[in-house]
């Protein structure tokens, strides 16, 4: 690379890093604004207590866990194609986990009491478990990345990868159980939510990975070998199908229970924005369109089809979380079954939620933080997945 192109590339890097830092700073500024004025400046209220920041935060945390799947397939199951990608997966996991936690913490009513949260842990609380699971995840991923990047540590990469594999399954079980253990509201209290979150993490994490990998390849003027692209495409399709299965089971079970039919009718039929996002956003855009791009003869070999499908999966993920979290809260608590309730506290009323600008900016700030950490990470260390095609072919690793 000559001096001029190196300078140009450096400029592009600083531009991207500055853009990411700006979005992050705006997000943090929005959080300070919320901190100063209280949550009165948000669209959240006493019924919809978790809003758009939680949609962003949970997406980031769940995708962070899932993106590490790429590394696990390499380190735990010994697949060379995935091993090459383990470092990038680790970096993305670290970045998204950090960003998700920042968003959750900055949305707290008393974000200044973070030390209280760190020093007072109630072990009957799923949030309390997460206070142990999240820092543990950082530590394990840090050690795992070390074993992948430091030659002397190579022999330890398999046990470290295995520890990360187990830990992230626990982590996402913990994230799903935040909802699964709630008896109060119709939308939650289901054991299927934890495994559903795990499979969602696989799909969303791999989708994010594919987009980032594509961007890095474009930057470096590289192309993904068709065999590897094919393999990742099929894996992502399996994950999308599995998410569909779990979501179908969740809703079909609810439809079978008489006490849940009113809620299902709300989410699937007459709940306004929620059925629209469910059918249009999650099912059509986030599930059927990617599957079409993966398998339809005219589309599957189209240039950029896997990246487009991955982006659609991410859009679908946000729709799905919006329906699950905000739709689940908007439906009134059924405190007196068989009776119509009215009160000044909006009992029996379907709640309306409109996210305010600070909430949107805080959520986007989280994406900005993950983006900046990734951009800086790939610039200063070697995270680019480089396949040695000749070696892979010789070992028969592309055809197994």
């Amino acid at each position, binding site marked *: 690379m000559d001096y001029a192109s190196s300078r140009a590339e450096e400029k592009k890097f600083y531009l991207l890093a500055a853009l990411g830092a700006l979005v992050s700073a705006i997000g943090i500024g929005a959080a300070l604004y919320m901190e100063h004025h*209280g949550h009165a400046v948000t669209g*959240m*209220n006493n019924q919809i207590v978790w809003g758009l920041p939680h949609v962003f935060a949970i997406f980031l945390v769940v995708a962070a866990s899932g993106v590490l799947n790429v590394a696990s397939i390499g380190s735990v199951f010994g697949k060379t194609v995935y091993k090459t990608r383990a470092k990038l997966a680790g970096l993305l996991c670290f970045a998204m986990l950090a960003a998700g936690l920042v968003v959750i913490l900055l949305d707290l*009513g008393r974000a200044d009491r973070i030390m209280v*949260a760190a020093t007072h842990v109630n072990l009957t609380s799923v949030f309390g478990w997460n*206070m142990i699971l999240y820092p543990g995840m950082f530590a394990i991923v840090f050690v795992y990345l070390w074993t992948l990047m430091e030659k002397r540590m190579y022999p330890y990469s398999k046990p470290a990868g295995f520890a990360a594999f187990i830990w992230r399954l626990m982590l996402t079980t913990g994230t799903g159980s935040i909802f699964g*253990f709630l008896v109060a509201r119709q939308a939650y209290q289901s054991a299927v939510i934890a495994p559903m979150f795990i499979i969602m993490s696989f799909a969303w994490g791999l989708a994010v990975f594919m987009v980032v990998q594509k961007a890095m390849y474009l930057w470096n003027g590289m192309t993904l070998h068709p065999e590897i692209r094919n393999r990742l495409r099929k894996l992502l399709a399996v994950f999308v199908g599995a998410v569909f299965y779990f979501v179908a089971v969740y809703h079909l079970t609810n439809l079978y229970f008489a006490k849940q039919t009113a809620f299902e009718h709300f989410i699937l039929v007459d709940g306004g924005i929620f059925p629209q996002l469910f059918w249009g956003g999650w099912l059509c855009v986030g599930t059927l369109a990617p599957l079409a791009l993966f398998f339809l003869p005219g589309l599957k070999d189209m240039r950029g089809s896997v990246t487009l499908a991955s982006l659609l999966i991410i859009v679908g993920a946000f729709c799905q979380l919006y329906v699950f979290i905000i739709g689940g809260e908007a439906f009134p608590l059924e405190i*007196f079954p068989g009776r119509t309730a*009215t009160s000044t506290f*909006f009992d029996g009323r379907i709640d309306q939620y409109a996210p305010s600008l600070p909430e949107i900016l805080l959520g986007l700030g989280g994406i900005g933080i993950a983006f900046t950490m990734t951009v800086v990470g790939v610039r200063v260390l070697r995270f680019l997945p480089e396949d040695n095609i000749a070696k892979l072919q010789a070992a028969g690793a592309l055809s197994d």
Partner: protein
Amino acid sequence: MNAPDNKRRALLATAGVGAAGLVVAPGIRLIEAATAADAPKTTLASSKVRWGMLVDTTKCKSDCNACVTACNKENSIVEEVADPRQRSQWVRKIDLVEQRTGKQHSLPMMCQHCTNPPCVDVCPTGASFKRADGLVLVDRHICIGCRYCMMACPYKARSFVHEPLTTQNPEMPRGVGCVESCTFCVQRIDRGLQPACTEACPEGAMLFGDLNDDNSAIAKRLKEVASTQVRAELKLDTGVRYQGI
């Protein structure tokens, strides 16, 4: 060269100790003073007591809001938040209509002070806690405002303070960014008084007392009349019971 340096160090050290003393000493004095002032009133909550309430919904009138007004006054719940959905309500009146028969009821709904409170289970810091006498309270010093308890409460009994407050009852501190709910007027019952809502009810529809004391009026009444726990299927063993629904 060394001598002046040493002097300067000694001076800085003295100044440092002095400043630390000035900062810490008033605190110690205040704590002593506060402890001394509180001493005669303080009684430890006992697990022999289980505070509870029985609401007779047949007496409760739909157009009466006396319990809510008394609660707001006692606990200084005055908020100017524009969105009514963001205002705190520790007790609220719910009007019910039976869908099949059209039969109407009206009742006050507040924290049910469960024996097995989901809010306490889910609280990450332990800020939501159950006192020995069954009161479910929030420690405002360690509540981080995550609102998980509000997701978990089956009675929608908790409120989040959405904006800074300017009026406070010194006995019932509240603050922006924390979650709060009915305390059964803990500041009153610890002095042997009734909760403000119970005292204010013009119909005498609310009966408060010790469920564990067989001779208390509430225990006697609960033996005589059929009472209901709201969402009994959750087996939370509520401290608040309703008659007539």
